[in-house]
């Protein structure tokens, strides 16, 4: 028992330290390098202490551009990895990622429509595209859930199949929009950027809205961790263990979808984080969701902060879509873990 607590604390402390290091690196490096020491002095300066030795430009870069983006990347990574754990556990499907039940297609269609509409909207720093992406993601999941619902029950397999069908339909609609882009004046490059993913935060107010949503979702998910363990036995097995299957399934799907929608509003469709971070951590830590959920949140955050740093600093001034980086790093790391843990990866 003591061993388990000790292990839990060690793992979370290690991952927490990794996240802090990643965030410091992400803040220090970029087109203009700013040393952690300067960052430290600036932070103290912000707190009213008299320090000096930096330019106003450096301060703007750091506090208005880089730091919100680093915090945004951490939030998006944490949300995607947590949602990945939730969906893989609940759907008992190793290919489940945060987008599996229609969120990606809903978000993408929302963004595409926003990029056609000749409207300039800004709400707490959010443009029309992230707003419609957020609501598109949630709307698609609601359609999927209701399609899968038969006589008061929503079998998991039906959720998966309805998710696949709705996603196919919506992506076909997006493809049609992109085909007609000459007539619609669609900003195809912007749609493409959204589909490839990229963290973009213009305004601290965006963080102020998304952070409580994501942190609250992660906490709520952790409250449901032992129920998620019971769902490993399937819905019937979970019911025998005292789980209110339909109610808890709805709660878990809702948390996962809200986390994904919140992530999409800051980062577009970033692939791989939600699929590979949970699998990699499950290989190393085992499948107990009470440890896996917080570990995935920290690990996903650190992974996306580092990926975002590489995305903006590898080929300056070109910014590589972060989804490409997550796949380029994530796939080899995952293959390495898969090979090192020689025993068959049991799912």
């Amino acid at each position, binding site marked *: *028992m003591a061993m*388990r*607590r000790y292990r839990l604390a060690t793992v979370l402390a290690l991952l927490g330290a990794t996240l802090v290091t990643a965030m410091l690196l992400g803040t220090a490096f970029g087109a203009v390098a700013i040393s952690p020491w300067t960052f430290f002095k600036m932070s103290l300066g912000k707190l009213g202490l008299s320090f000096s030795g930096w330019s106003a430009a450096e301060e703007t870069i750091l506090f208005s551009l880089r730091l919100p983006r680093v915090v945004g990347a951490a939030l998006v990574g944490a949300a995607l990895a947590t949602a990945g754990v939730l969906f893989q556990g609940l759907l*008992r499907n*190793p290919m489940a990622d945060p987008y599996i039940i229609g969120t990606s297609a809903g978000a993408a269609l929302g963004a595409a429509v926003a990029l056609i509409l000749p409207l300039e909207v800004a709400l707490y720093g959010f443009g029309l595209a992230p707003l419609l992406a957020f609501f598109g993601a949630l709307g698609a999941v609601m359609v999927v859930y209701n399609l899968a619902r038969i006589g008061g029950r929503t079998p998991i397999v039906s959720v998966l199949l309805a998710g696949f069908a709705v996603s196919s339909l919506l992506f076909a609609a997006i493809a049609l929009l992109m085909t007609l882009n000459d007539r619609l004046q669609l900003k195809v490059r912007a749609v493409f950027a959204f589909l490839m993913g990229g963290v973009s935060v213009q305004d601290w107010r965006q963080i102020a809205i998304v952070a409580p949503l994501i942190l609250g979702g992660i906490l709520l998910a*952790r*409250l449901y961790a*032992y*129920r998620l*363990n*019971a769902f*490993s*036995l*399937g819905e*019937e*097995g979970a*019911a*025998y*263990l*005292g*789980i*209110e*299957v339909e109610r808890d399934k709805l709660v878990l799907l809702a948390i996962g979808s809200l986390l994904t929608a919140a992530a999409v509003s800051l980062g577009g469709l970033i692939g791989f984080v939600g699929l590979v971070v949970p699998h990699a951590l*499950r290989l190393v830590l*085992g*499948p*107990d969701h*009470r440890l896996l959920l917080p570990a995935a949140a920290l690990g996903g955050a650190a992974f996306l902060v580092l990926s975002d740093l590489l995305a903006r600093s590898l080929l300056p001034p070109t910014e590589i879509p972060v989804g490409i980086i997550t796949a380029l790093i994530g796939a080899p790391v995952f293959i390495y873990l898969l090979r090192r843990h020689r*025993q068959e*990866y*049991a*799912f």
Partner: protein
Amino acid sequence: MPSESCGLRLEGVSFNYGAEPVLKDIYLRVEPGEMVACIGPNGSGKTTLLKLAAGVLRPLRGQVHLNGCDMRSLSRRHVAHQVAVMPQLFHIPFAFSVSEVVALGRTPYQRGLAGPSASDYLAVRQAMAQVGLDGLVGRSFQELSGGERQKAVLAMALAQEPQILLLDEPTAHLDIRHQVELLGMVQQLNRKQGLTVLATIHDLNLAALYFPRLVLLHGGRIQADGPPSQVLTVETISGAFGASVQMERHPGGAPHILLLP
């Protein structure tokens, strides 16, 4: 609690799958400390009866009472504190260790963020000792043989610390040694700890050996209910199963069925 309101009672229970009636007007009482096997041909509704008793299916008509309370008024958590189910062999995704699988039996006692308590760990250790799996604590569940898996799933049900244990075909897919071992364990739990047992079982001879009371289901109704010597007769068995049989005696005294193909 007065003894007549204890245990498990099905009062005029009917159940349909779609338009197909599976159980018709079933009255069944399982008293505390009894060990009952439900037998019958495929599709006779044995498993449905077990799921109704576990409260995961709701009867179309009639009521299921658990310790005097209508099952519909009880939360799943409350039911799981008193009734544990050992389902047929299932697939568990993820590489859970044996002790982690057994610890899933403590789910109805967990709350929110709190980790497992000392009593949870104790119950898990005891359950593993009761089925003789102490030596396999850290092993992966998926590496176990069929017989060991079935014991681990039994230990998971025991970790729930139930009054009533429901077993769905506990000996299916097991070799004869493991069949005897598993039913022997269940019998010991029933005799020594007064655990109430209701099982579905296909093997009529095993049922006759281990269960003092048999309930024969056929055509959605209880055709016979009583000790094996009463229930297992040439007439009832050939009537329910449509197979020609001959009755012999096991050296221990239980009826033994010979098939006459």
